[in-house]
């Protein structure tokens, strides 16, 4: 699904990622934990293509449609691929054996090919309603993939379904993006968006922070419902073990000083919680 090889990145000329390598296969959930300032958000933003996060070395290859080319939701529909051929993006996406050079794509192209970024600090955008921008975003993704746009009615049905899954009031979805939302509501909104956009790979940056215990359970179950399938994968960035009680990771990595310094199974997260970063990193 995703192969990161020796990634180096700078922010404002300051090296933050210093040779990070990581491979994620379809069906896997990976957790990344690490102290504040380790570079976790920088990794998420770099993979999302945020301007200002400059890649100075390494490669990232994305295989959004690994095993079932042309059949799954993000591939061209059989009809449209026969009728109108492929868009530029799909042509490169088609060559699944080689994957796509993620770093060479614009942020919206990364999204259209199946990448989703859950923000640590979701942005407030006054004057633009959630449903308005999500419908436009989803249809822009579909267009890029050579799919038909979703009608207003179908979109609203989908949005209602995902809002219900995350126990979010539909009225909130009609309000301007994240404006006046509490920290927890913003994170829930991120997951509703993920449900609507239905990505192949989700990178979730501290989606658990700002959530109370009940909301944590809802969000955890939402992540499982949306993303836990054999052809999808999740990269879960978190500080705490508690989200991992709901979303069981297959691998746990510790990120420190711009690199993965240790990898283990779910037990590593528990060990971290008990002993702290310092003890584990000294041993590493």
């Amino acid at each position: 699904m995703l192969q990161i090889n020796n990634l180096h990145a700078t922010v404002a000329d300051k090296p933050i990622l210093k040779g990070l390598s990581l491979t994620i296969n379809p069906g896997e959930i990976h957790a990344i934990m690490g102290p504040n300032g380790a570079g976790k958000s920088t990794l998420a933003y770099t993979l999302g293509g945020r301007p200002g996060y400059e890649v100075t070395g390494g490669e990232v290859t994305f295989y959004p449609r690994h095993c079932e080319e042309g059949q799954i939701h993000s591939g061209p529909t059989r009809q449209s691929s026969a009728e109108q051929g492929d868009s530029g993006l799909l042509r490169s996406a088609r060559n699944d054996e080689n994957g796509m050079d993620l770093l060479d794509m614009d942020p919206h192209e990364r999204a259209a090919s199946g990448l989703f970024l859950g923000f640590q600090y979701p942005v407030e955008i006054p004057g633009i309603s959630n449903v308005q921008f999500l419908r436009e975003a989803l249809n822009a993704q579909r267009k890029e993939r050579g799919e038909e746009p979703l009608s207003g009615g179908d979109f609203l049905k989908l949005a209602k379904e995902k809002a219900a899954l995350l126990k979010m009031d539909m009225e909130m979805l009609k309000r301007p993006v994240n404006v006046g939302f509490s920290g927890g509501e913003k994170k829930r909104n991120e997951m509703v968006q993920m449900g609507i956009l239905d990505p192949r790979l989700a990178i979730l940056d501290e989606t658990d922070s700002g959530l109370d215990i009940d909301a944590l359970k809802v969000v955890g179950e939402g992540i499982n419902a949306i993303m836990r399938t054999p052809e999808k994968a999740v990269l879960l960035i978190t500080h705490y073990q508690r989200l991992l009680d709901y979303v069981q990771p297959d691998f746990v990595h510790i990120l420190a000083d711009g690199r993965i310094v240790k990898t283990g199974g779910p037990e590593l997260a528990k060990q971290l919680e008990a002993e702290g970063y310092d003890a584990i990193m000294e041993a590493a």
Partner: protein
Amino acid sequence: MIALPTRRDEAWRYADLAALEALWPLPAPAAIMVPAGDTLSRAIASKGGVTQIELTLGKGASAAIHLLNGVGDYGRIELDVRLYEGADFTLDAVQLASGEQTMEIVTTVRHLEPNAKSRQTMRAIASVKGTVSYLGKVAVARGAQGTDSVQDVKSMLLDRTATANAKPELEIYADDVQCAHGATVGELDAGALFYLASRGLPPANAKKLMLQAFVAGVFDGAQDDETLTSAALAKLGEMV
């Protein structure tokens, strides 16, 4: 004014004087009188050139003017407004300048008698080498107590080469008055643009959505709000 203005004339300091020369001499300004107690609502989409309006609001009269300025090489809308006792004047305007367009709105609002209100809301966007300007003078006459005036001016620059001028000006000869004015010049929020892009919106769509939000509401309640709004949106679509 008989002679062609120069840059030294305050009210013409940002004007496109070369374009003006071709239009000179200007016809007499349009005069609109709203009698005491009456109400006027007027929407104006400039087709370019110079539009001059002299508006007088009698005692207790009210007027709501909506302006869209964004067509032609040079578009200038001038409003000279006289407010008598208790009159209520609102002006809501959008200015859009792309390419090498120069768009400007120049207002003089004279609070001649007590307790009149004036509200001016300006939203302007300039791209490429476009220039948007607002010169707005509020003059409160001696004895015009209880005057309440607001000038809310926000401009957005889409390119480093574009220009926005905003100059609210107060001339107050009464002591019991409230005159608020604010002028900001900004650019599109990069964090918000990335957020929208990360959801799959191509840059032009994301920008258009944000610019739409920036001018949203200005034409609410206008006499012809759908025409003005769709003309503004069409122009915004060309600017991103």
